[in-house]
């Protein structure tokens, strides 16, 4: 069985085969022969030579969470075929960093703004988050008004870069 995991924009190619009491894992030109048992749902005890790996895994909607050695990693299993497209965050991406409520819109469509100027104020968990202009430019679109609910990742304000 061949699996790809995506973690923080890197893809890890792993293969695993189960034979009798052992699992054989191949990753990055190394083979690992391990004994493993799932002691409780999602809880793994893996013996690799004399070393013991204890791990807890749960599944979200598309992602998996792995707890190992006090750390948590979030991975997304990806399809085998096709190159993984890595979407780079654009310079002027003004997506909301948080799900919350718009408490203040500082600019209007067509306003000229300076880099660093506050465009919108979003409140979540009683904290304020400021959406600032990434560069000098002109406000092209404002996607939310005061008191609107905004979700994480949604585009808040669009700014055309001054040329």
């Amino acid at each position, binding site marked *: 069985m061949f699996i790809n995991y995506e973690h923080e924009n890197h893809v890890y190619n792993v293969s695993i085969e189960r034979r*009798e009491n052992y699992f054989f894992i191949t990753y990055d030109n190394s083979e*690992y022969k391990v004994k493993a048992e799932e002691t409780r749902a999602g809880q793994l005890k893996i013996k690799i*030579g004399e070393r013991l790996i204890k791990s807890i895994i*749960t599944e979200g909607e598309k992602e998996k969470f792995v707890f190992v050695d006090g750390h948590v990693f979030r991975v997304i299993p990806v399809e085998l075929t096709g190159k993984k497209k890595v979407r780079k965050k654009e310079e002027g991406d003004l997506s909301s960093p948080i799900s919350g409520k718009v408490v203040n819109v500082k600019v209007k469509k067509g306003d000229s703004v300076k880099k660093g100027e506050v465009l919108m104020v979003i409140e979540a968990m*009683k904290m304020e988050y400021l959406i600032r202009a990434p560069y000098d430019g002109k406000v092209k679109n404002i996607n939310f008004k005061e008191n609107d609910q905004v979700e994480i990742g949604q585009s808040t304000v669009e700014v055309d870069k001054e040329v």
Partner: protein
Amino acid sequence: MHFLKKESQSGVYNLFKKVLIANRGEIAVRIIKACQEMGIKTVAIYSDVDNDAIHVQLADESVNLGDPTPIESYLNIPKIIKIAKHTGSEAIHPGYGFLAENPDFAQSCNDVGVKFIGPESKVISLMGDKIAAKKTMEKAGVPVIPGYHGLKQDNTTLLKEGKKIGFPLLVKATAGGGGKGMRIVYSEDILEQSIESAKRESKSAFGDDSVFLEKYLDKPRHIEFQILADEHGNVIHLFERECSVQRRHQKIIEETPSPVMTPYLREKMGKAAVAAAKAVGYTNAGTVEFMVDGNLNFYFMEMNTRLQVEHPITEATTGIDLAKWQLRIASGERLTLKQKNLIQRGHAIECRIYAEDPSNGFLPSTGTISKVEPPKGPNIRDDSGIFSGIKITPYYDPILAKLVVYAENRKECLNKMKWALSHYVVLGVTTNIAFLSEVLEHKEFRKGNITTHFIDDYFKDWTVTKDGLPIDAIIALAVYDSIHTKREEIVRYKEADPHSPWKHVGRWRVGGRGI
């Protein structure tokens, strides 16, 4: 019921029979448990998103508040008062946050004959007004920090006074707390903007937009003293808590004793704290917060008229249950604890587990917690409001749990906390657990060299993973997927993929090379 009657007849104390807890999350759970130990019935309130919350499951009765927006639910005074009356609750415990320091709420309770578990409304009012509080403390001989605490709130006055104090200075919401409505201003050109933003945040969090300005201290530590005061004039302090490690002006790690404390300073500050409480006729549990500078000068900062988030470390080192004393004091019982008999024993640390991303500006994270498993062991306490399957919404404070450990001394305590954090499993939402572990490991923290700037000084650009996915995680994932993949899926997979490594299966032999 029978048990309670017997107890009051024997004259031990006449406790409440039923208490409403006007809060949610870990603190509601903690208070319900204290009530249960004392044989007091409990009423939980909950908003629509808290239907399945632990405090709701634990309480004897629970009443829905509807709309999860704080102002419509946990901040809705008329709704809560009505529920208290309707359920026959004799008292309301406000927890911390929400209505805990709202004088109108305390007054409303009083007006309908429900006991508010905390100080009197007018005391909350006085202490909530940071300006009046400082003036009162100054009169009582407690040292305060220089600043502008005037009533004139127009921008011209504030700008003028700000320039007079000099930079850096602090803009703080008069009605504030917990870092909300607070800004540090390093230069004149951002003063106006900072004042406006602090005012706006304060208005939305506390319904009041007045601010004050004060000098920002160099190498400041935040050290606070726990107070217990009964309704018969007895006041004691239960020593200090060192709360300097903060992010966004909110505490994340607290410990007691403070690494910088001396017996002499402790006595002086303890006396000042008791004097502060007596000066305002304080009753119930409270905390006097001081700023301590590099030369161990201390200044009164504010008094928190509630049970603090970090109260368990005091409970661990003194052996005294503060939540239970709150209930006893509110029911009129005398404080039987004597200052001279109190002992601070060993060392305790609290780490606040937040749903937030330390590698992304500590932004709160939301989502469903797919799994929670707190560490268990000697002297490990987990005050938690979460369970596997709970949804973390953006409506309320992102605190998930408080991990408190106790040991003989600071070094042992740090080691225990490190162990406990590394065994604290929270999957599904991003937490600050790995970050807390690294803070504890930091050599300056180990030495006890902490100030309120500690996180900014040493952890500004911290990120979680430097080396990507470790091999142990890859192996665990592969094993998990192998166990949980059905046979048909594997076959289909094999056929679908022309580059399948199954073609190389011959390379592997049973009993083949391990490592």
